[in-house]
């Protein structure tokens, strides 16, 4: 079939354009829509039959004059042109330059939907990434190839946390090497921004610049005032680029995606226009599979050098972790870092709520030879003791702190120290995992030895150091 232009639009609403009497168009094909002002929009075929073709228009369908709208079927799937020169560049949601520089020229282009990785081809992620943040390294360890989202709320410093991770992340065994160039060469960052404000976008850019990584960043950006439907394709475009960097160019790629909630809202918009059966909160039933198609592109592949580590930011509307977007994200990703409004209000940065946070890949990335032998038990003890301390706190709120037993009072002191010293570290402090673990022992030593049952006697003998007087 040759690319042909048609002017047979039947209707348009909510980002969808329906065409009649078109040739046999393939599902997923790319189309160019030319409106009556001569402006070009791009779209994708999402349903096709001899009678009717449904197009999702990425720039939206506002102000389309159906009589004077031309549609050109390009007879090719949605692809992204790929080349090493993408590093350091800024693109929009479909991969067109946004930085005023010329488009990428290359023979290589790939379908942005990717193809599923054969599970038998995956390599299990187990290389510890030191982020320098105690709550992550010590208790919710990140490994190369993991997908670990940040669950946040409006006004919480998720962007600062993401930027701090980008600045500080490194492999432990590389600490000793001074060969910065070599380390830099294998590192790349893909930054995918959907629906973020201009100021947030600028914050990230400045932060990359300060940490000297700007040349290794590929940015895909769709700002808050850009057409929302473009957000549906943006993460796929960004991940196609990430896959190229990781599995063709052998780089260790960190992908930061913000904000997935805006992505899901765009999906809901189109689903509603299509008349899809809604499940929770108006989101379509396939939101889970759709998010999984994105998140599951992270990982490692056997026999390949590179990796894709994915940190999506998900804001929880009304701080509700059961909202479909964080909820389904949690069902797909390998853990989550949850931010807390209370800790943020108390001035603790980064305000990580450790109890609902989790890293599922931690177990294989820590311990002897990777971090430290006692790491798993220390983390487990911190979780258990802090959970207990929270119970004591709610009790104290009811009966008053004076009524608490001596042991309970020790728990309160522990919780206080844990939050201000262990969780709180500010945006500039970069702690080694050993500092983090030592700090953990310091705060745990505020508790009586008998309650530290998740640690071994050997650990306790070696590292338990109660302060001379706690009274």
């Amino acid at each position, binding site marked *: 079939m040759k690319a042909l232009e048609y002017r047979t639009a039947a209707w348009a609403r909510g980002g969808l354009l329906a065409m009649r009497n078109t040739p*046999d*168009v*393939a*599902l997923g*094909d790319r189309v160019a829509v030319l409106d009556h002002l001569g402006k070009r929009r791009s779209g994708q075929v999402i*349903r*096709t*039959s*001899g009678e009717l073709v449904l197009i999702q228009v990425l720039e939206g369908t506002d102000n389309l004059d159906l009589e004077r709208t031309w549609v050109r079927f390009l007879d090719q*799937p949605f692809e992204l042109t790929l080349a090493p020169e993408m590093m350091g560049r800024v693109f929009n949601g479909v991969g067109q330059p946004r930085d005023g520089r010329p488009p990428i020229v290359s023979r290589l282009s790939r379908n942005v*939907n990717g*193809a*599923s*990785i*054969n*599970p*038998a*081809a*995956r*390599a*299990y992620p187990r290389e510890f990434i030191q982020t320098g943040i105690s709550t992550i390294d010590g208790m919710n360890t990140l490994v190369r*190839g993991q997908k670990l989202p940040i669950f946040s709320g409006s006004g919480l410093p998720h962007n600062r946390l993401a930027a701090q991770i980008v600045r500080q992340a490194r492999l432990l065994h590389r600490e000793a090497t001074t060969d910065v160039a070599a380390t830099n060469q294998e590192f790349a960052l893909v930054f995918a921004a959907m629906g973020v404000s201009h100021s947030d976008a600028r914050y990230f850019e400045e932060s990359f610049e300060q940490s000297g990584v700007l040349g290794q960043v590929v940015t895909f950006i769709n700002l808050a005032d850009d057409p929302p439907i473009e957000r549906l394709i943006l993460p796929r475009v960004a991940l196609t680029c990430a896959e190229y960097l990781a599995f063709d160019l052998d780089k260790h790629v960190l992908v930061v995606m913000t904000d997935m909630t805006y992505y899901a809202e765009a999906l809901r918009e189109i689903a509603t226009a299509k008349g899809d*059966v*809604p*499940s*929770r909160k108006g989101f379509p*039933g*396939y939101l*889970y*599979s759709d998010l*999984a*198609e994105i998140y*599951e592109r992270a*990982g490692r592949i056997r026999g*390949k050098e590179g990796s894709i580590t994915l940190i999506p930011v998900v804001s929880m509307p009304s701080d509700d972790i*059961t909202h*479909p977007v964080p*909820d*389904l994200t*949690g*069902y*797909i990703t*390998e*853990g*989550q870092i949850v931010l807390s409004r209370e800790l943020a209000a108390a001035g603790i940065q980064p305000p990580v709520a450790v*109890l*609902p946070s*989790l890293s599922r890949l931690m*177990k294989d990335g820590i311990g002897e030879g990777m971090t430290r032998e006692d790491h798993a038990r220390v983390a487990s003890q911190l*979780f*258990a003791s802090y*959970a*207990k301390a929270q119970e004591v706190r709610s*009790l104290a709120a*009811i009966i008053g702190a004076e*009524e608490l037993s001596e042991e309970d009072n020790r728990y309160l002191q522990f919780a206080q120290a844990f939050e201000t010293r262990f969780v709180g570290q500010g945006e500039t402090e970069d702690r080694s995992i050993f500092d983090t673990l030592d700090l953990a022992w310091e705060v745990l030593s505020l508790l009586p030895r*008998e*309650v530290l*049952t998740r640690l*071994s006697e050997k650990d306790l003998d070696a590292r338990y150091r109660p302060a001379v007087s706690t009274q």
Partner: protein
Amino acid sequence: MSNAGTILDIQGPIVTARLPAARTGEQVKLGALGLMGEVIARDEDCAVVQVYENTEGLRPGEPAVAMGQPLSVELGPGLLGGIFDGLQRPLEAMLALTGERIERGLMIPALARDKRWAFAPAENLHIGEQIKGGAILGSVPENPSMAHRILIPPGISGELIDLVQAGDYTVDDVIARVRDAQGQIHKLRLASYWPVRKPRPFQGRDHAIQPLITGQRIMDTFFPLLKGGKGAIPGPFGAGKTVLQQQIARWSDAHIVIYVGCGERGNELTDVLDSFPKLTDPRSGRPLMERTLLVANTSNMPVVAREVSVYVGMTIAEYFRDQGLDVVMVADSTSRWAEALREVAGRLGQMPVEEGYPAYLGSTLAAFYERAGRVETLNGDHGSVTLIGAVSPPGGDFSEPVTSHTKDIIQTFWALSKDLADARHYPAVDWLESFSLFVDTAARWWHENVDEDWLLLRNRALRLLTEAEELNRIVNLVGVEALSGQQRWTLESAKLIREGLLQQSALEPKDSFCSPQKQFMLLKLMLDIHARGADMLTLGMPVRELLRLPLLAEARRWKITFSSDEMKSLEQEAVKIVPVFDALRAEYASPSASKDQAEDEFRAQISMGTGTP
């Protein structure tokens, strides 16, 4: 040709094609890529096809061909140790053929064609004898753990006209021929086929009699499941469904484990593929992978194949059951399967009833779970399929349709709680929400094989935990000081049971698997400490003193200090309970210790609401 037609409409995974002769359930091959699908509805001369693969690039006008048969699995030697996708394509072979990404339109048979298997015919068979479906033709030592029996497929019967000698054969070689009553000759091979949506037949259902020993205390000791039973593990994300299912796959005393990863993470299957070959079955000492088979439709693989994957797993499970084996199938997660149903129903414009699910959700789930069970096989043997489904309720809300329908169907319910998981109490099985309908049957096994007192002690421990829950409510209102000494001791004992018995980390080398003997021993010891402590209180020992006993911290570590093979050492260690309490008894057994006790009783009255301070 009447079985060829054209594609009319493509909408996500649903394709409508003009195919006048195709029947519902029949396989259809679509387009230039040759994508496979199955007919799910008919509309005049059109067939509505759900496609197992991504339909991108398909166009109207391309050909559609009906293949004449429903989706079937291939059954025979070479299944074990493998990983297959939702359509039973061997993923390792696909990796070798097309690389790390799954290519569309590729059909590779499940079993290797060129491998030769040492087949030994059954000795009691004679040429000329009448045989029927289910009869054993012979066996193949598939691996050192497994003598794979080759059965006459159900539905075939007649006169055995020949049977090969012992020797090496491929799955395609004819090993026997049967002439049926109509004179038709059936060639039998090591491989056979069975349609996935049709349960394999058996002679009759049997009572389940034996608990499935999983090595997990919260399951075996508290909420047992029988071999042939149906269980569910519902829980919010991160609560531990997958870990628990992997623990079952690792340690349970089944002959065969079918692990179906249905719409979940790719890395979780990699984890199993990496770790199982290195782990050994605690009973046979053989690598676990020899009895394991994985079916993987990960969350990024096409939705329709996800719906099929559970049926593929179940049909393979039934095939091994028919060989007289106890099979465990774990499905992670049945919610993803239900969502796939929902998606297809939605695209067909079927009326949604609850949260977008079609009206037939409940009956579809029930019919599927019904394929589990212990049966008398066609050849008079006994085999079972135990089915354990994970359920992933949105927002952790157990009242949602999939969880609530499942709860009505299953017999053992292991409810995972977010609060327990957040506090890193693993397995996060909530002992108040969970239930098992099998406790009495399981008790018979425990009484015969482990100890007469099992049921008594199990119930006592559960009662203690329930009492503690009540007391905790009081504590949260008025503080722990309002409790009597006995009540505080109950709280402490419940904590001891929680930490020393219920909590069981999958990562703890000595405790990941816990034998029934060790389970019972720990249960008994924890309750013994409770009883002796309670005695001391009546003798007037202040509860504060009792709570300070170093024994309490030590008892919590017994589970990780002594493995199931070190029962002798655990017993030796445990005898020290006696001198500890004897010494205390000597101290407090003087008759003047009643002041504390009176005070205790007074407090108890206040806290139970019988008096107001």
